[in-house]
């Protein structure tokens, strides 16, 4: 008979490898690779080591479900408050009907460690549970631009000359759009310098903090640097890049950040490299707009990238993206919780600064799998 027990694994336990004390035939705990462990421990917003790194459900001593947690910060007007984020939830299939997923979600909901919670990228399957838990759930349209369809052809068996010819044919429309985009990009590069950097400048964090929205997950310099330096899987093809945009005289104007993620299995296809424009900021949108930043970003990706995803925060950006060749593709979901109900308008999406790179999305590889 099942004896389901919920365990709290703290950051201290994570540091001391105590999460490895469970039997793990379903690789629930093995998911925390050394690489992921380092990433979580390096998070600049965890604060107290007694805070929860993972809720783990066991049957006897066998790990059967998990959800990871880490700290982040919200900026609400001029106030900065700690908040909980996380993800990577998973429940072994045969335990899903026993409410393991619900128990994990509840443990996170009832935790007293933070007054605020923010999450993104969760399975559609958990949305009904999240609504019942009275979280505010936001949805934003995602846009994608195809870059190179050859990996898709290769994964369905095309090779050699056939791949080269077929690839050239299917990529032809993409290359046509590139001609138009590169003309516009060239005019931007006559005004600005775009440089890839390994150290995030302080002014980038200030651009984020000076955003006009009332609410945001605070992507300060430390958060941006952490996301630049770490990712979850550590595949050779997984990388993050940070670019500064300056005037010709060297004055900061804006920035953007990208990620590329290698996926061994992506639906019907395999060995696909996906790109995302995860963060951007501008000191003056009349000088350098959100659309401009997305345009500059497209052409910084590895040529083998299959597609580039972005989530615009303004309607006028959506129109510009469509002219660049982006098409609407799915939705990004986020949830926000205010435990003490301190802010009555926290559920108003128009008051939020939104970026695809939020919560755990940058360190993530693939989309999360089912919780229950």
């Amino acid at each position, binding site marked *: 008979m099942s004896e389901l027990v919920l365990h709290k694994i703290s950051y201290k336990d994570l540091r001391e490898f105590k999460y490895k004390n469970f039997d793990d035939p379903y690789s629930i705990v093995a998911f925390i690779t050394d690489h992921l462990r380092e990433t979580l421990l390096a998070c600049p917003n965890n604060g107290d080591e007694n805070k929860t790194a993972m809720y783990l459900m066991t049957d006897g001593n066998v790990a059967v479900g998990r959800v990871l947690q880490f700290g982040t910060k919200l900026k609400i007007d001029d106030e900065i408050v700690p908040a909980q984020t996380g993800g990577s939830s998973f429940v072994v299939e045969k335990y899903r009907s026993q409410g393991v997923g*619900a128990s994990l979600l*509840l443990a996170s*909901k*009832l935790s007293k460690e933070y007054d605020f919670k923010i999450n993104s990228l969760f399975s559609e399957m958990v949305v009904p*549970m999240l609504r*019942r*838990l*009275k979280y505010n759930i936001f949805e934003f349209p995602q846009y994608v631009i195809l870059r190179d369809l050859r990996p898709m052809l290769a994964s369905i068996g095309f090779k050699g000359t056939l791949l080269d010819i077929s690839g050239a044919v299917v990529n032809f429309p993409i290359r046509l759009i590139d001609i138009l985009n590169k003309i516009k990009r060239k005019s931007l590069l006559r005004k600005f310098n775009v440089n890839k950097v390994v150290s995030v400048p302080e002014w980038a964090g200030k651009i984020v903090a000076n955003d006009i929205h009332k609410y945001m997950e605070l992507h300060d310099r430390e958060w941006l640097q952490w996301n630049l330096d770490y990712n979850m899987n550590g595949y050779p093809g997984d990388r993050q890049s940070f670019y500064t945009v300056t005037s010709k005289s060297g004055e900061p104007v804006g920035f953007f950040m990208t990620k590329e993620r290698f996926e061994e299995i992506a639906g019907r296809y395999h060995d696909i490299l996906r790109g995302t424009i995860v963060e951007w900021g501008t000191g003056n949108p009349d000088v350098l707009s959100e659309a401009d930043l997305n345009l500059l970003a497209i052409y910084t990706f590895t040529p083998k990238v299959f597609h580039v995803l972005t989530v615009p925060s303004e309607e006028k950006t959506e129109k510009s993206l469509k002219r660049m060749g982006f098409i609407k593709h799915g939705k990004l979901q986020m949830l926000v919780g205010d*435990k003490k*109900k301190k802010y009555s308008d926290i559920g108003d999406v128009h008051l939020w600064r939104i970026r695809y790179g939020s919560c755990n999305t940058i360190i993530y590889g693939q989309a999360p799998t089912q919780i229950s």
Partner: protein
Amino acid sequence: MNINEFIEKFAEAIEIEDASMLNDNTEFRNLPEWGSLAYLSVIAFMDDEYDTQIEEAEFKKLLTVQDLYNACTQK
């Protein structure tokens, strides 16, 4: 919050349109709306409205709406 107000909030939490169907003796697990989602909603509601957190083993002992109300108000 008195028991009637609690019943209103409980009905809202588990998405029962007509709270007048419920009373303090209602055995909530027999309601057609009861299930894992309703359980989640009730636990969240008890935490949000009453700052009451209850272990699963303790919750299993609660049978009626009155039991739920008592668990929230008698701390």
